């Protein structure tokens, strides 16, 4: 399911390292995927999106990879900075349906 309780998976990296956050999505019919960053006390903030007709999309310091065969999504953050510390969620959606389904969050901790 979508909930994993209070113990989020955590990725700890050093400042300047590259980070990779993974996500397994649930619905093979989903055709739109988004990564959100959520800082403490704030709502999710849009990072990058990708449609199912693509397998890679790049933004500023971020890259999203989509593997539809194994229903896997990843977010790569280059030169990770302390300001990148947050919880990251992937989300999936099927065109024509308004419901966005969020996956398991991952806490990213960046040490100076």
């Amino acid at each position, binding site marked *: 399911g*979508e*909930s*994993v*309780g*209070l*113990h*989020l998976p955590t990725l700890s990296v050093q400042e300047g390292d590259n980070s990779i956050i993974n996500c397994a999505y649930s619905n093979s019919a989903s055709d*739109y995927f*988004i990564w*959100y960053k959520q800082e403490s*006390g*704030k*709502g*999710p*903030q*849009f990072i990058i*999106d990708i449609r199912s007709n693509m397998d890679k999309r790049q933004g500023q310091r971020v890259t999203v990879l989509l593997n539809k065969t194994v229903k896997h999504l990843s977010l790569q953050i280059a030169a990770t900075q302390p300001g990148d510390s947050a919880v990251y*969620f992937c*989300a999936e*959606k099927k065109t024509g*349906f*308004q*419901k*966005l*389904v*969020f*996956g*398991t*969050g991952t806490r990213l901790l960046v040490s100076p």
Partner: protein
Amino acid sequence: DAGVTQSPTHLIKTRGQQVTLRCSPKSGHDTVSWYQQALGQGPQFIFQYYEEEERQRGNFPDRFSGHQFPNYSSELNVNALLLGDSALYLCASSLRGPLDEKLFFGSGTQLSVL
């Protein structure tokens, strides 16, 4: 350009009470969705409003209801509050159309039910 704004930021209620949360969408957006986020979990879809009507609903009981006004702002009402309703309630807005998936979230209302 104001983003999505929600009020109040924090709220404390007791079991059985009713609560109303408010949301103003990002300028230019006409669609509002509400999500519930329990501690340590991802947001869960409650429902979406467009043209003042509920368009899609998640797996939430009828105690959860909403409204959208002509200026696109929205309210979420929860009746007969339960302890389990304690959560962060997020409002997200978007612009209906071919590229309407990009949701912009507010900072949420933290509801505590005692």
